[in-house]
């Protein structure tokens, strides 16, 4: 009952404070601007992708009669699908390639990163709703709560409240409840905007998956804000004046939200440098020509070929041995590419592990990762696109080479395929992976956040009780 009395008092105090109202309105305004920017960007990206995918189909069909392996060198492109929720959190999509060339012999990295064209401003912030949630809302919570205990201690009202029989626990619960209320009053309208934005501009993503992601985001940010609110209450209770509380909290905000993520990324890349592009190229070339440079593998393949067609000389076979050779180079290279890109992925994992390790210092780091993951804009989703594109490449190149083998006759080099073959080559399906595929990773990040929340709660509770005891003996 007493906690409710405190909540209604706090609400009244906030309503009376014109600064709180102004702060609230400006957050809502920035949020709306961010949503507008985000939705616009996502729509543009999606329009670009759809147009490029359609043109790729047309260009492919329109290539005219040509040798199927020549076509495999012209090849097709896979374009990365744009997740609906990237309008909320663009994550790292600006820094991940939007297209993969599905060319014969080689698995290429994704190319055309949007950030490459952004110019010198790219290193500043790109406005997005997630950015507002990750950076600005914690600052607002600090501004709202830094005086929670410190102000009452400074003014003596905390003591006054205690002489009226308010126990430390009642005060703490009251403060907590009113903090949750102000948190909800921020979170709910924001969620509503996001929901409306997502469902109005949605381009037919799976509704159940989308809902699951939205629920995940709601809880992630709920816990994230709760951590900051608890920290603010705790620090406020530790300080005897608004001044010290404000300063301590600002320092914490700067360290935890602004510096820590960037520092973590820098440490990650200093400890585990980016993959060396020249080495990568060399490895890719080695794999590409691996079969050609491996006489043993060639001999074995030749023996198999002869046996398959029941002949003793390749010239006697009804098909061109060279077409089989092309198929062989792909089959030889594919597992090697898998192996090499797995090694690169290990590197990425090592970098991400370093970053995650630094989550000890900042709840913002796991939140950024979790949020971009739930929005479908993180590296896991990118890796899924890469894997899907590669799968498509292998199917496509195999189909082209097989056409050469089965229809090309004895001198397949002179055989030209046409639109009838081009039409049978499937488009990259551009489906979004469902959240379930990455669940374990995200659960781990969410676990870290919950640990933070638990620690923040214990800290706040301890500090609040301590403040009451200190006030009593002052």
């Amino acid at each position, binding site marked *: 009952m007493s906690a409710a009395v405190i909540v209604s008092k706090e609400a009244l105090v906030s309503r009376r404070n014109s600064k709180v109202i102004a702060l609230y309105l400006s957050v809502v305004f920035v949020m709306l601007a961010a949503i507008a*920017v985000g939705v616009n960007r996502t729509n543009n990206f999606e329009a670009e992708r759809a147009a*490029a995918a359609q043109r790729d189909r047309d260009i492919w069909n*329109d*290539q*005219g009669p*040509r040798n199927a392996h020549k076509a495999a060198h*012209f090849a097709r*492109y896979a374009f990365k699908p744009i997740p609906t929720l990237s309008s909320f959190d663009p*994550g*790292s999509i600006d820094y991940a*390639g939007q*297209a993969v060339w599905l060319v014969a012999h080689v698995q*290429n*990295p*994704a190319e*055309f*990163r*949007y*950030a490459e*064209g*952004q*110019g*010198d*401003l790219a*290193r*500043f*912030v790109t406005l997005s709703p997630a*950015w507002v949630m990750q950076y*600005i809302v914690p*600052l607002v919570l600090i501004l709202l709560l830094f005086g929670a205990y410190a102000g009452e201690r400074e003014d003596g009202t905390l003591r006054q409240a205690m002489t009226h029989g308010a126990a430390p626990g009642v005060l703490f619960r009251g403060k907590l409840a009113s903090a949750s209320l102000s948190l909800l009053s921020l979170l709910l309208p924001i969620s509503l905007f996001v929901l409306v934005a997502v469902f109005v501009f949605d381009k037919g993503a799976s509704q159940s998956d989308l809902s699951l992601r939205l629920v995940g985001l709601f809880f992630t940010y709920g816990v994230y804000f709760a951590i900051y609110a608890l920290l603010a209450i705790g620090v406020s209770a530790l300080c005897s004046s*608004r*001044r010290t*509380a404000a*300063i301590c909290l*600002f*320092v914490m*905000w*700067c360290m935890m939200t602004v*510096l820590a993520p*960037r*520092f973590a*990324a*820098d*440490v990650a*890349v*200093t400890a585990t*440098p*980016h*993959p*060396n*592009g*020249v*080495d990568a*190229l060399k490895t890719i070339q080695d794999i590409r020509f691996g079969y050609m440079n491996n006489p043993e593998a060639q001999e074995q393949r030749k023996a198999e070929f002869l046996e398959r067609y029941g002949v003793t000389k390749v010239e006697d076979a009804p098909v061109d041995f060279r077409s089989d050779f092309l198929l062989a180079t792909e089959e030889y290279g594919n597992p090697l590419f898998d192996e090499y890109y797995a090694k*690169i992925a290990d590197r*990425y994992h090592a*970098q991400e592990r370093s*970053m995650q390790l630094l989550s000890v210092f900042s709840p913002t780091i796991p939140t950024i*990762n979790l949020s*971009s993951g739930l929005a479908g804009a993180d590296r896991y989703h990118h890796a899924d696109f890469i894997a899907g594109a590669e799968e498509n490449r292998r199917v496509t190149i195999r189909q082209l080479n097989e056409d050469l083998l089965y229809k090309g006759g004895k001198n397949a080099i002179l055989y030209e395929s046409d639109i009838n073959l081009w039409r049978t080559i499937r488009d990259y399906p551009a489906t979004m992976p469902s959240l379930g595929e990455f669940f374990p990773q995200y659960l781990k990040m969410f676990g870290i956040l919950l640990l933070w929340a638990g620690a923040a709660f214990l800290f706040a509770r301890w500090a609040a009780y301590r403040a009451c005891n200190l006030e009593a003996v002052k």
Partner: protein
Amino acid sequence: MRQALVKLELLRLRKSPVALAVLLFTLLASLYAVWSGVIWREHHSAILSQHEARVDAAMEKWRQTLIAFEKDGVKPPPFFDARPGAIEKSMALGAAPLSHLAIGNTELLPTRLNVSPARDHITMVELYGFENPTVLAHGRFDLSFFLVFVLPLLLIGLSFDVIATDRTRGTLHLLLSYPVSLGKIIAARLLTRTGLLLLLAGLSTCIGIAFSGSAGLVPGALWLLVFLAYSLFWVSAIFFVVSFVKRSEVAVGSLVSLWVLVTLALPALANSAAEGLYPQPSKLAYLSDARTAKNEAWKHKDALTRQFLDDHPELSVGQGMENEYFRAMYFTNKMVLEKTAPIVAALDDSNRRRSELLDTLQFVSPAIIAQRAFFRVAGSDFDTTQRFTREGIDALSALNNELETAILSSTRISVEEYHKLPDFKFEHARSNSVLADILFPVLFLLITSVFLVIFGFAGNRK
């Protein structure tokens, strides 16, 4: 009196654990930033040398084949060996003297080109983009980040309460009973505190500059100029705010808000504005155009070859498949270059217009000015990377012009002709042109600072 103020301030700083922590953090964080940049630069330079060595080795092999062929003359090498169509020259966006202080765009954009008639302007860019997007998206903690983002926060942390505590404690009246103005007291204290911090940041900066040896001297001086102008802006902004705001928590709140505005909000808005006014032309559309051109070239290569041979009957050679190979490749590449010229021009134009817009827009926020200037001095700005790609395309055209006749007539060039071919080295902008680019923005920072100080004194007189 002023001396006494400074002495007292130094004593107070020595006794304040918070101030000492801020100073220590300044030193450690800036040294880390320099160190991390140096590590990156070594990694990056090693990759560039590796690239150059690979191309050089391939060309040396090519040259030796040619030398052997010229010597024997009798026994020609296999058809594809030592052909002019296979000539390749490396071109690299090398690290400028101070590139380790501002990694900027060099981490993101291509820095290695293979200039060869066998390539078009897309395929001449060596395979890149193997970086982890998550890490890239966060950006680097290099010295430019430290100076643009972190340093102002540290300055604020050290000096927001330069006078407010005296106001609340009541010692202010005591101080003012001496013959000295409030503005001067604040100024003397502020300069003592921030001066110490800037000295430490400057020390790290100088250590960073020293890594480049004598080549870093002139750019180093420019870097320090930007550093000083930007720091001065923040010191004056703090002076201005504490002159008007009485309570320290309000002062720190206002200053942090100012920081959010200057380093986060305004650049974000500027970014959105730039994107809204001059949207990036779709790179994917560009890709589609290039591929359409390739298709067209392929379809018409016979007609093209025929037309070319009509004009140059002296170059007609046998129509064997081998002869066809380099010629078709060359025609295709040339056609791709021609067909995509409009969209390349449009991209260039859009980049140029965005750059020009930014020339104006940067005055919205001192953080944009500082970061752009740091990037410019370090040679990691967007314009430099764009110029690199443009010069790469020019180099390709130059090399094509040299080799066109030989490729189309399916003849080899002589070793002597090979030696005469140009090498393509990218030169970073000279310091005087860098100075010309950053001078006005830096002056703007200085003038803003002067105004802030004047208004601050006016505020104190009230």
